[in-house]
């Protein structure tokens, strides 16, 4: 892991130069406008949804976009012949994505405090780290299975419909209770519960199960689905 710090610093420099950071912050500022317009009564229902969308879906999209650019430029191939392990390269990209998610969350956190005088629980920070990590891994997974930009968009749509829609429907109470209970095993629903628990009182067992689900999905996807295929993806780049 000698080169991890240098890889992360390179990722941060490129996120700035490629405007990935700008896009992340720009989206957060748009959320601020929405937050300002939300009636006080709806803050606890809508803000977690915003934080979830930002830290989960945006993380997946931004990491996929950055991988798409890098593959097009062939820079993944040249990283593959540097003295860095595949895990170091993967982790640097995931950590960069988490940093962008934390920055966006901080902006949302401040805007909620300013416009509504509501403070989000500080547990939001570790939860956003976990949720952004899991969804960045999912973003990489989607990239691994996308031949080009169009197929990446199609795969994203499938991902959102299959995994995120149940979480969104559950959050607005549109799913029957029994389905909602099962959906906790979905990465999106578990992520949603963790984020919501920082604003709305949530049963401890739900938080603990969600924590386990998010960590388990992250580890399983990284070890079984992403890591073994990532070098091949880099070499094709």
């Amino acid at each position: 892991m000698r080169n991890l710090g240098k890889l992360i610093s390179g990722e941060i420099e490129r996120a700035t130069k490629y405007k990935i950071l700008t896009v992340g912050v720009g989206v957060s500022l748009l959320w601020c406008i929405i937050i300002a317009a939300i009636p006080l009564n709806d803050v606890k229902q809508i803000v977690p949804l915003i934080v979830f969308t930002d830290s989960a879906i945006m993380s997946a999209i931004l990491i996929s976009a950055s991988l798409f650019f890098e593959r097009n430029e062939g820079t993944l191939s040249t990283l593959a012949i540097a003295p860095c392990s595949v895990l170091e390269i993967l982790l640097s990209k995931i950590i960069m994505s988490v940093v962008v998610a934390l920055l966006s969350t901080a902006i949302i956190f401040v805007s909620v405090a300013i416009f509504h005088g509501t403070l989000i629980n500080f547990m939001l920070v570790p939860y956003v780290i976990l949720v952004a990590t899991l969804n960045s891994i999912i973003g990489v997974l989607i990239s691994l299975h996308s031949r080009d930009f169009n197929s990446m968009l199609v795969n994203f749509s499938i991902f959102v419909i299959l995994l995120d829609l149940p979480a969104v429907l559950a959050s607005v109470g549109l799913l029957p209770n029994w389905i909602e209970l099962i959906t906790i095993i979905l990465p999106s629903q578990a992520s949603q519960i963790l984020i919501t628990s920082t604003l709305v009182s949530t049963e401890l067992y739900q938080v603990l199960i969600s924590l386990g689900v998010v960590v388990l999905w992250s580890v399983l996807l990284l070890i079984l689905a992403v890591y073994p295929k990532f070098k091949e993806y880099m070499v094709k780049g």
Partner: protein
Amino acid sequence: METAFSVIDLEFTYPKAKNQVINGISFDVCEGEIFGLLGPSGAGKSTVQKILTKLLTDYDGRISYFGEDLKSLSKEFYEYIGVGFELPVSFGKLTAIENLKFFSSLYKNQVDYNELLKRVDLYSDRNKKVCEFSKGMKMRLNFVRALLNNPKILFLDEVTNGLDPKNSKIIKDMILEFKENGGTVFLTTHLMGDVEQLCDRVAFLVDGRIAEISTPRELKQKYGRRELIVEYKEDKNIKSQTFDMNKLGDNQSFLTLLKEKHIETLHSGETSLEDIFIIVAGMGL
């Protein structure tokens, strides 16, 4: 001279592909030599380079690097090799110097990349974004990228692709200097000029098989025609005759021609490597 790479019965098939790309090839690359792998597009040249640089690992056969099994080597292996890719591989939104600074930071052994930029005539463009570079400039930057860690072995894939003659010569001179300083070069190309000017030994790769392997000189001796073409003036017209170079001094018609006609030019009709490749492989490049 020690053997840098020893390749024995190398076979490779891409995942999901029906046919083998590399069909049981064997060769050695000696330390301090420039070894050229020559072949038409799709022959498997880049695949061999990717295997030797450990980018493709799922191969059959045995490859050793200075006596050690290539598969057993760790990422430290990359501290000692430099790879020049066929296509540009730099971050477009970063400047040349930002690219080099980042990649250089990943190695223990580092060289002064400003000096290298000066050598390839990119120093004045060092603060320009790479996306504003021409293809030739990007290829020169690729070459500098390959030398960043002062490698022992240099892998170059179509290194002069897209370069004008002046810059092509600069790069070739630097490759020869690298060799003079003890470096080993593995060059894959379809450009005969590069091979003739640079390579100590060359292997012809055709459909994943090595059709011939030798020095350019030996190949020319083996497959070349020894002939002399004489152009002379006759009745205000330029005419030519071709003579066998063997026992030229005893050839009466050649001697008569020299004596009686006004000779315009004398050319040795050496067979080019390209002609030899066509003879050996039964196809052009």
